[in-house]
């Protein structure tokens, strides 16, 4: 990770559903790959396609609606990304083209996985989400601007603030190599290991 993210403007895809689990985001049959790329076409596979070979799109599913093609912000509801820790979930969202996910709440592991993949998770209140859904369901082209530095989401004349932990914000803004940063603390890690009682040493 070298590039950071700060301000993103784009249209949004309204996935108006709570408790979307990572099995829905990317089902298990796509987890046998050994690479990080190429998962976007399988994103939301079971809901998106009527057949398992991905030949027949489900016309009722929001990802297949003409007006939402090209959306780069995903709107969703409570507990998004619950279930399995598979990082294939943020990989598939990113590969599809989403840069920001705005939800009422996120599952913990998924949230951390987003941060580690430069995918910005934004948490708003239920009422604020209602307003965003209403706007996007009425006007699919509505441009939403998410500003990480200022911690704001703006659309039309609305502006919402959001919270994010300082370390997550820094990592997203600067696109830091988390491992590289920690390796700079190598002496401290070694000192910690040396201080362990003998029976706890590896």
């Amino acid at each position: 990770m070298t590039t950071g993210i700060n301000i993103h403007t784009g249209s949004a895809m309204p996935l108006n559903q709570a408790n979307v689990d990572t099995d829905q985001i990317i089902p298990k049959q796509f987890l046998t790959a050994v690479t990080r790329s190429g998962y976007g076409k399988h994103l939301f596979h079971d809901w998106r396609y009527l057949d398992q070979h991905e030949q027949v799109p489900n016309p009722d599913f929001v990802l297949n609606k003409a007006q939402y093609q090209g959306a780069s912000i995903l709107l969703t509801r409570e507990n998004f990304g619950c279930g399995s820790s598979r990082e294939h979930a943020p990989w598939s969202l990113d590969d599809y083209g989403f840069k920001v996910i705005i939800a009422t709440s996120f599952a913990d592991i998924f949230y951390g996985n987003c941060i580690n993949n430069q995918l910005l998770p934004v948490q708003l209140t239920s009422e604020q989400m209602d307003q965003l859904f209403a706007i996007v369901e009425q006007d699919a082209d509505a441009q939403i601007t998410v500003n990480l530095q200022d911690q704001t989401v703006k659309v039309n004349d609305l502006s919402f603030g959001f919270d994010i932990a300082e370390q997550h914000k820094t990592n997203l803004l600067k696109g830091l190599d988390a491992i590289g940063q920690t390796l700079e603390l190598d002496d401290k890690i070694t000192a910690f290991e040396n201080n362990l009682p003998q029976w706890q040493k590896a």
Partner: protein
Amino acid sequence: MATTLYDKIWQAHIVEAKKTAETGEEGLMYIDRHLIHEVTSPQAFAGLDDKNRKVRCPKRTFATMDHSISTRSLALDACGPTNKLQLQTLAENCEKHGIELFPVGHQKQGIVHVMGPELGLIQPGMTVVCGDSHTATHGAFGALAFGIGTSQVEHVFATQTLKQSKAKSMKVQVNGSLPIGITAKDIILAIIGKIGHAGATGHVIEYCGEAISGLSMEERMTVCNMSIEAGAKAGLIAPDQITFDYLQGREYAPKGENWQQAIAYWKTLVSDADASFDTVVELNAADITPQVTWGTNPGQVIGVNQAVPSPSDFADPIDKDSANKALSYMDLTPGQKLSDLSVNNVFIGSCTNGRIEDMRAAAAIAKQGKVAQGVTAIVVPGSVSVKAQAEAEHLDKIFIEAGFEWRLPGCSMCLGMNDDILTQGDRCASTSNRNFEGRQGRGARTHLVSPAMAAAAALAGHFADVRDYQ
């Protein structure tokens, strides 16, 4: 200041601490044990290789093959070339980085969360991570154990640490002793039913109370295993004599003088009597009945004799909407009795319920009858060791005699990354941990139950109250 068990483990593992006004305690946490498997490690190893980095502590890292393997054959290609490539990649990466691997066919192979504890790799007070959300299982030993993503797997490989923010604490106290026929699975499903599928998000749970301290280690693992199904980061149970007795003599447990020192330390790993928790939840064991999930998340659960709920039973609009969707996917009608609901598949196994006690509990029911016509029932032991022990007790013969299939160890139908998958419209009584849409196969319907309840459903051909069998 009075501290919780979680506080104590946190304190003992922070290499470098930071405290901020907005986010509270943060720190770089040392990781004592790293378990890996074929699905969430290849991209982490590739990341190391890209930057010419090494695995810092191969001796703290152990690998097994479990998710992508066949339960009918020991051949790596039994489930196709992509599964084989993933398994071979794990073997090559472990060889290259000097990590001990228990591959298919090895006597120590098993589901990662069954294998680790039975070898004594998991001990009280440890920090344990794995690229798998059911890592919470190991909290049964009073270890802080949590699932991580692949980027974090790579971070642990390279540094043996993780950056962490301190979670909130939740005490879940289960009072009184368990009624006959009620199992650890029923306890955890009842807890999730009470607090909800996201009820513990952002928290580390400590389970306590008479009903918890009376559980065996296998049962405690079942409880902690599903902490993630309530949204929790981890689940803990304070170590006690039951924990020490389980560990003593296991291959990787401390020995001799080290054992004495370890015990002395482990005995300090309890929450202080006056420690405070951010959230406290209490249940009475006497109120818990055999649990069956009716919906598409583990919080949508009822007692076996309760009627399927109606969306109008839920006040919260989100719960109402979820109930509507779940009833439709599960093809259920409000008011329906579970005993009227036919099942055509039964799965006994997984990191939740694939241990020897689970095999014994299911076999005790299985020997009372035959698998009903039209039902396919499979039993998948959690490890080679569980399989061997079950066979020594002739449990395999009981299952086979009753019409169950007796398989090789692996994750199997819990998530169906191999060929143990269901098809559209199948209805399964499953001892696994997730009843999400499509989890066991596209369009298939999963009901989570205990091993005894699963075996009873296999014999009856529909859900049945296991208490009628004892």
